């Protein structure tokens, strides 16, 4: 749908699969260029400790971005991932620290809250037919408010919840923090969901042509709800990981994360118009953002210039990526 008449040279030589693989490789190339640049610019950059830092910095936003990718695939948008994540953190805190439920129950509870947020988003979008922007904007505010109300505007600490901090901070794979491991596993799950399950297939189909999908006998409304619920599960996971990493639930946090998550998705090559999405792209998009920020900091570029630099690099990276793909956004 996004192919414009101008400059459609060289289109469609390969099937969708090949093209997308190619495109991801190229986005990956962009990431590599950034990596190489910083490695040359700073001797401290290519340290495992620093790379680990980048990966950790990617994890939470990255997990949110995975869910957002599914929603964006339908042509929707999810503005509630940031504060929704916070609400999941807070509820995990309520379950574990306040109510003293077992670890597993608390974590599943956190995920369930995410699913619930997704369910409400999905119902509002699919059955009330609200524009996703409105439905999830409203949810963003409601979740933000509820986080504060429920927590009494105070952080909830997990200090007494044995093992909770290890969820994100431990290293099941030596040298690799669990948060990063969780991110990667979640990415694989999201990838399989997108490309191998009905949820993903219908997400793409709805994003490609909602009316035609409905006419083809797919229960579009039901599947939209499913898609938002699945996205909500990722929000829940992000909330749990966040809480574990901070060993506390911070009710005031979250606003602004949604934009970062969506940016990661779009930089990765997923179209906001729906129909086209790539999880690998999203992972790379999230890594590009985190790497840029880290690299500029390592180079001690003054904060105000960092913003300018990130903006310019994003334009360059996405443009270069598109050039190679034959200007087909």
């Amino acid at each position, binding site marked *: 749908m996004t192919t414009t008449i101008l400059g459609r040279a060289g289109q469609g030589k390969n099937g969708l699969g090949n093209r997308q693989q190619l495109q991801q490789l190229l986005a990956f190339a962009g990431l590599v260029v950034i990596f190489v640049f910083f490695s040359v610019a*700073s001797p*401290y*950059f290519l*340290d495992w*400790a*620093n790379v680990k*830092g980048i990966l*950790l*910095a990617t994890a*939470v936003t990255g997990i949110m971005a995975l869910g957002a990718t599914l929603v964006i695939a339908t042509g929707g948008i999810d503005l509630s991932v940031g504060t929704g994540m916070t609400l999941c953190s807070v509820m995990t805190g309520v379950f574990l620290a306040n109510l003293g439920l077992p670890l597993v129950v608390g974590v599943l509870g956190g995920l369930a809250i995410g699913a619930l947020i997704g369910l409400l988003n999905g119902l509002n979008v699919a059955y009330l037919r609200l524009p996703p922007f409105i439905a999830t904007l409203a949810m963003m505010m409601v979740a933000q408010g509820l986080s*504060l*109300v429920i927590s*009494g*505007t*105070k*952080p909830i*600490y997990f*200090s007494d919840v044995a093992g909770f901090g290890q969820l994100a*901070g431990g290293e099941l794979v030596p040298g690799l*923090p669990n948060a990063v491991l969780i991110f990667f596993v979640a990415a694989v799950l999201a990838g399989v969901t997108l490309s191998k399950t009905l949820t993903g297939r219908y997400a793409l189909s709805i994003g490609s042509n909602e009316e035609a999908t409905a006419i083809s006998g797919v229960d579009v409304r039901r599947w939209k709800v499913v898609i938002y619920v699945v996205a909500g599960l990722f929000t829940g996971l992000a909330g749990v990981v*966040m809480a574990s*990493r*901070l*060993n*506390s639930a*911070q*009710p*005031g*946090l979250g*606003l602004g994360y949604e934009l970062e998550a969506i940016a990661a998705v779009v930089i990765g090559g997923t179209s906001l118009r729906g129909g086209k999405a790539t999880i690998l792209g999203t992972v790379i998009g999230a890594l590009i953002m*985190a790497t840029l*920020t*880290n690299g500029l*900091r*390592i*180079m*001690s570029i003054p*904060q*105000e210039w960092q913003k300018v630099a990130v903006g310019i690099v994003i334009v360059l990276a996405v443009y270069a990526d598109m050039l190679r793909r034959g200007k087909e956004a």
Partner: protein
Amino acid sequence: SGGSGSGGGAPGTGDKPYVALVSKGFQHQFWQAVKQGADDAAAELDVEVTFEGPETETEVEKQLTMLQTALDKSPDAIGYAALDSEASIPMMTDAVSRGIPVIAFDSGVDSDAPVTTVSTDNLAASAEAAKHMAELVGSGKIAIVGHDQTSQTGQQRVEGFTQYIEENAPDIEIVDTQYAAGDQLKSADAAKAIMQAHPDLKGIYGTNEGSAIGVVKAVQESGRSGELTVIGFDSGTAQTDAIRDGLMAGAITQDPIKMGYETVKAAVAAINGEEVEPVIDSGFYWYDETNIDDPEIAAVLYE
């Protein structure tokens, strides 16, 4: 939540005096502590109090709108923590002309309008932090993780610190100052990058609760606990725990509860036409492992 005693009807409609507080924020524990102090005073002095503030300390215009709405409720007094010391002057002059006394808190305004100013001297407080940093580190490289680049408080917390080091500790070099909006995760990421770029870094100063906890997190995650001197600002459970666990050398705390309390008290005094001191210093304290449980310190720390 809400204004204590606001009960069912809208504040100001009852017969109790009504004091509207417009602060710089409301989600931070610091501001919640201010609010608590205000609520305490309200209960004690039998007045109604409302408390609100914008989400971040850059939202000057949002805060002005809040102030405007507060004035529209015809309160008996206004407490105001200005994000920008000049932008609100016309509105405060307006309040004064309507006979509504204004109490400035947290930071002052360049105007005669406020009856009094209840605040922390942030320059002095951060110089105190610098003094302890200098004593603990002796010499070498240190860095700062700031919470806000544009607000007066944010700037003074860096300025006071830097000035002190430059003037009194020639062997110490501040190699980097990065800002991360007081977000714990982002502060942790920033602190890590700084540590990475300066492997021989000896200390980091975080300018508010979120920044300080982020720095602690970064040191912990890099497995360098004990090697770096971390100095924080404000309190909150995470910070007091970090000090008890030896992850943080110490921190400056203000006395937000007193700040809130004194603000409301001064407001009531002004309503009653009583004389009020032009400046009320709500004070600040250095606390560390050694004095954290002293009663006078414990009283000003909040969770």
